[in-house]
């Protein structure tokens, strides 16, 4: 891990993405640097999840380019992991789910048990190791999704509204795990619609609206008072329906 070179920073240049005739991401440019936690916020339909998928390589941009400036030897995707809003667990045991991910990354068989044990311990799932993954509660499954990502020791972890389907206590546990993964040296890029969560976790905030990046600022500065007036309205909970539909008020 320490000897490994970083794939960061990640630069998006004039990235666009369209589905059919609809332009969903528009001329988006920004740079993600190493080590910080970047949190993307914005109203529903802003394109937050799309942006994560473009960065992670699950979708290809229809315009512009996505460039990983660092080079660590293998393809950039090898050093990334992603946790989805709804955890997708294979129909096998908790430990086998993590083992599956490790086998895909060609981690030697002998090295896997220690990684699995460690990941389960850090997410408080040790006692469930032999359980069928899909009988766990949603909160536990999301922790398992984090454990699975953690075991991979990614340089970059994407999280797409990881607590959207969870209750407050489960949310709290997930946030602790995310924080721990970050402290262990992983770059975190996540989306959320929970402003409290954004305040708690973000080092920098990106405000996305109708497929455009309207503001990108350090967390304290953003929450102290965003420069963009739509972002201000969003923080106040006053982003009106017509503002959601139009970029500028009529």
């Amino acid at each position, binding site marked *: 891990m320490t000897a490994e070179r970083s794939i960061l920073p990640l630069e998006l240049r004039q990235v666009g993405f369209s589905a059919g005739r609809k332009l969903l991401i528009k001329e988006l440019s920004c740079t993600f640097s190493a080590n910080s936690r970047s949190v993307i916020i914005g109203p529903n339909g802003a394109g937050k999840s799309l942006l994560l998928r473009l960065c992670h390589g699950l979708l290809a941009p229809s315009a512009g380019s996505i460039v990983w400036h660092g080079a660590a030897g293998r393809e950039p995707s090898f050093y990334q992991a*992603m946790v989805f809003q709804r955890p997708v667990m*294979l129909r096998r045991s908790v430990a086998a789910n993590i083992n*599956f991910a490790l086998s*895909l*990354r060609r981690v030697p068989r002998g090295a896997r048990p220690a990684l699995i044990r460690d990941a389960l311990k850090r997410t408080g799932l040790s006692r469930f190791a032999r*359980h069928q993954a899909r009988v766990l509660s949603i909160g536990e499954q999301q922790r398992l999704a984090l454990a699975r990502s953690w075991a991979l020791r990614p340089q970059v972890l994407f999280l797409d509204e990881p607590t959207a389907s969870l209750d407050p206590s489960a949310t709290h546990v997930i946030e602790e795990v995310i924080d721990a993964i970050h402290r262990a040296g992983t770059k975190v890029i996540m989306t959320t619609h929970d402003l409290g969560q954004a305040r708690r976790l973000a080092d920098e905030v990106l405000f996305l609206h109708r497929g455009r990046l309207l503001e990108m600022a350090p967390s304290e500065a953003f929450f102290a008072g965003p420069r963009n007036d739509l972002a201000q309205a969003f923080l106040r909970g006053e982003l009106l329906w017509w503002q959601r539909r139009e970029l500028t008020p009529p």
Partner: protein
Amino acid sequence: MTDFGSALAAAFSLVIHLDRDLGEIVLLSLRVSVIAVFVAALIGLPIGAAVALFRFPGRTVVAVILNALMGLPPVVVGLIVYLLLSRAGPFGVLGLLFTPTAMVIAQILLVTPIIAALTRQVIEDLWVEYEEQLRSLGAKPRRALATLLWDGRFSLLTAVLAGFGRASAEVGAVMIVGGNIDHVTRVMTTAIALEVSKGDLALALGLGIILVVLSIAVNGAAFVLKGTAERGQAR
């Protein structure tokens, strides 16, 4: 007309007397169908999964053809296999016509589309759920395919059982390529057809009842297997 009473009596009498010919016929039926379904699953599961997974030109056409082939008339399959295996046909030198192997080949042709089509449906649904996760983890297509087949195994068992049902109940194809030869290629369904043609409807129905009971036993066994496997996993 013969009533069900005498049919039941005929079935019962065949079973309690442990009729040797009946045993032979039942064993051959099971052997032919089980081997055919085994091979059909080996071919049909990967094909069905591949059609579900991969985007290639003509994919929809392939899916439609697979679904249509599920209803392939056994007699047509029998005829095709007969023409292929006949001494006058391209594979005549193998001397396979009127052997259990010929029956297995015909049933493989009948059952593979069923298993492939049902597999495609199961795997397609599963792929919707798994696609992003598997791609995020870096699964290559072949690995993704294997993972989907394994994770869909309980639903796929149903597809395989549907194939077995078709194979064991089918008479048209095995009659043509097997010839219903006593002690060599006579199976349950052709034996039933023979008794019908002799006008012994009670015996035919009796054999039919035994076939149904066998089919229930096989399906029941599969269900129990599936139940214990799932419970074992939940622990």
